[in-house]
């Protein structure tokens, strides 16, 4: 990770959701936090809708894999939450011991995005879980997965680009910068970003979009196997963007 990025990230939050797998996101967050020697906060958001549903007398679940119907057991759900919390706590302890990073765990309840943005507004970077994915994998990925990086000319963009490049060094990801078409045509992309982009491989061709909005990008992300989306949080200016964010089919890293 370049020096510029390392200096800027001091507090990283990883936003987890009860009952959902967290391993991949934890790994990503650890990579980023350890490189920057940043404080890592795990934020566990309890899905209120599910909690309400559990308490209803006819609460049932249709299993994704078997299509069978099973009663949702409130006590089992509670046990599952406790187990997940304990697991996260252990992982954080391990991170502190092995990497010397300060870690903490916060638990909150409410709508996922709302709660994350409310609690994590003081952090430099937020890892968000992607949308629930119902698709089955047809075959193993044959190539590194793309890391989409939305680049306006902000300092957060430069930060995002640095992070994206650092992840690509592992060989598991390939960089896909997303730029505003007009900025690209008018050569108004900021010099540091342009310099960095010139150093990237031809495989990392930039995607030019009429405007840096999530809605049109979502179509692209759905069509291609996205690995991670990195973007400045400032691009989520409207409620519409926030609602689209919930539908992104891969983890998202917001740079504040």
């Amino acid at each position, binding site marked *: 990770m370049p020096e510029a990025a390392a200096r800027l990230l001091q507090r990283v939050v990883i936003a987890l959701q009860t009952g959902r797998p967290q391993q991949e996101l934890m790994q990503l967050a650890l990579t980023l936090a350890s490189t920057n020697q940043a404080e890592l906060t795990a934020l566990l958001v309890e899905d209120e*809708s599910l909690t309400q549903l559990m308490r209803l007398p*006819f609460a049932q679940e249709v*299993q994704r894999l078997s299509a069978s119907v099973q009663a949702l057991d409130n006590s089992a759900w509670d046990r599952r939450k406790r187990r997940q919390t304990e697991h996260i706590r252990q992982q954080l302890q391990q991170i502190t011991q092995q990497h010397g990073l300060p870690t903490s765990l916060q638990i909150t309840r409410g709508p996922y995005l709302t709660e994350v943005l409310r609690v994590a507004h003081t952090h430099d970077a937020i890892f968000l879980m992607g949308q629930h994915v119902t*698709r*089955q994998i*047809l075959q193993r990925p044959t190539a590194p997965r793309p890391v989409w990086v939305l680049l306006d000319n902000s300092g957060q963009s430069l930060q995002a680009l640095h992070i994206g490049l650092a992840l690509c060094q592992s060989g598991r990801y390939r960089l896909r910068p997303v730029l505003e078409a007009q900025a690209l045509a008018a050569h108004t992309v900021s010099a540091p970003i342009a310099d960095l982009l010139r150093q990237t491989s031809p495989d990392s061709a930039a995607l030019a979009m009429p405007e840096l909005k999530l809605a049109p990008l979502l179509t692209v992300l759905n069509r291609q196997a996205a690995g991670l989306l990195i973007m400045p949080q400032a691009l989520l200016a409207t409620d519409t963007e926030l609602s689209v964010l919930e539908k992104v089919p891969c983890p998202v890293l917001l740079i504040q």
Partner: protein
Amino acid sequence: MPAPKALSSTSLRKFSDPAQFTFQSTDELEPCSNAFSQARALSAIQFGLRIHNGGFNIFALGPAGVGKLTTLHQAVTQEAATRPVPPDWCYLHNFDDPQRPRALSLPAGRGATLRRAMQHLVEELSASIPAAFESEDYRARLEELEQEFKERQSEAIDQLGEQAKAQNIALLHTPSGFAFAPLSAHGEVLKPEHFQRLPASEQQQIEQTITALQQDLQKLLRQFPLWAKEAREKVKALNRQMAELAVTHLIEDLQHQNSDLPAVYDYLMAVKKDVVEHVDAFLQSGDNRTAAAGPQIHAGTAQLQRYQINLIVDNSSLACAPIVQEGLPSFGNLLGRVEYQAQMGTLVTDFTLIKAGALHRANGGYLLLDARQLLQHPLSWDGLKRTLQTGEIRLDTLERSLNLFSTVSLEPEPIPIEVKVLLFGDRQLYYLLNEHDPDFQELFKVMSDFDDSITRTPDTERCYAALFASICRDHQLRPLSRETVAGLIEHGARLAGDADRISTHLRNYTDLLSEADYWADAAGSEQIRREDLQQAIEQQIYRAERMRENIYRTISDGTMLIDVSGAKTGQINGLSVLQLGQFAFAQAVRITATTRLGDGKVIDIERETELGGPIHSKGVLILSSFLATRYASEHPLSMSASLVFEQSYGPVEGDSASLAELCVLLSALADAPIRQSLAITGSVNQHGQVQPIGGVNEKIEGFYDICCSIGLDGTQGVIIPAVNQRHLMLREDIVEAAADGQFHIYAVHNADEAIELLTGIPAGEADIAGGFPANSLNWRVANRLLELAQLRHDFAQRNNGVSGDA
């Protein structure tokens, strides 16, 4: 009948005259094979090699060292040069049945080319297939399929979600699936307390709606695997398409290069089909190479290995038909084997682990095998016979043949074989196989019998000179002077045990010449001189004669009682030969006889003590018959006699002492002392004729050495059968002693000549009435026997009043 005179010294050894040779050194001679000495055997080999009917394989028989293998090699090399190079053979993966690898024949040299081409193909495919699958085009098409599938699912779920929402129900994602929950007027999940407050009918309605939605969702989710299967099929079809794109031009190139070989063309078609079907192997081979992924790596590697060519017979370097000699003809070495590799604790194999045997390598040519070695290795003989009978090499493991263990193994396609097998071994083995194995005669119809010796003529002596020259050249030895050649020929005659023959034992000559070369080198000579040869012979004897020295010492120091002077009745010097390894020497043995009144039996004490062999006993019975016939034809043979080999504690076999036994018996009967300065050897028949014996030279030389050790006084000598005269090739020192009148060799035709020499008393010829001249030795024997008969008659009358024999 005058007693025979001692043989002249010139008849005791047939010298080879160096003057007959026109060369000074064997360097001047053209090389020559030993074909002249083995004409019969060579002719048989040539016949066997040229006849192409089944079963005309060759068995070369003869003692070790006569040059069987050399002759076979020379003949086979000559014949092989006229025959074409046979095809290469390889084993290929059988795509239809991997347990039964296919055999493929290719023109010589094309096997290696195809093997390289297939290795190159796999390398090319390992690069081109992943490249095709990493292309933008492929990615785009794959993502399209993914998206199509994903959208199909998402749309269906979303549609159901909308349908639910229209009925005021939310579709929620749970950790492992989906759930439906009623919504409040604010669009949030209805809290339980609010739900409880709803009228029962409304609650029921909600529950029914949710149940119906759940059923719809179940139906939908059950569709998902089918959709996934459809999508996977599409992905597979895309993969096949991409693979074909990457493979086709490479395979077609190879097919074009091998368009003259339909079998290769077909094989490449099968390879193409298989690559397309198993394209994942090429994608795996490039990545996932971590320690944890061991089995997967093996699976991927094994997958690629199947496109290799196992070239088991590569004849690219041959210029003619192959000649293979297998020194260790074990089952596997002969018929090939399937090897195994230990992987993950189990033994696995595939067609690349098939190893060729000698039969594979000799296919289309010649295979030379030592018969004894072949028979010593379990199942090798059976395997060879089966191959020759069926005309194909069926590769089977020894373990499976013996049912030792039942690992899943391969059953490679048998390979047709056309090979001429040349076995070599000793005569005993040949005759044993002939007698006990009915298949042998069918499979080895050509017998090539190697002579031990050939007739010695001036021509053959010259041929031998050239042969010795070849041996020296082949073994980088110094050349021989013509005197050395003459000495070597004389040594060959001694080896043959016949002055008129010469041994064909090439190994003896080679070994002796190597030793002589050593002594020539030590003496700083440019040539191997006669004295070098003599020193080599003496050194050979010196190294082997410890036992002989010991025995002769016991004679000279009086431990073993042998007289070489004076005269004694009923005592004679016999001669026997001891063979210790390659070294043979004579041992003098005192034979004594006693006679007394009896019923006509000659007691062979050796026989009575079970030390005498059957041939020896036969000799004793023959001389008994001679005695009875000649001397007691008109009255009972009324004597008993005992014969014994004094101080002999081992088995006695052979009839070469029967003349000595007869003479000592006659001496005892006639009370005629025998000259102890003479030793005697020879067998005798019922008519008293003396017959030849073996080892005459060793026997004479042995007695001469004993006499020398005790004291040579000019009276000593040996009596031999006259027929053995032509076998005489005595040591030069004995010839000189004979010439000086110090030692004498007498050749006798019958027992009368022998007994006359031994006793100095005329034997006496029988007249018409059967009577012998008075005082002759035979008269004394006859008289004594008559006396004994009378005594016996009187004795019988005195005691019983009746003669026992009447």
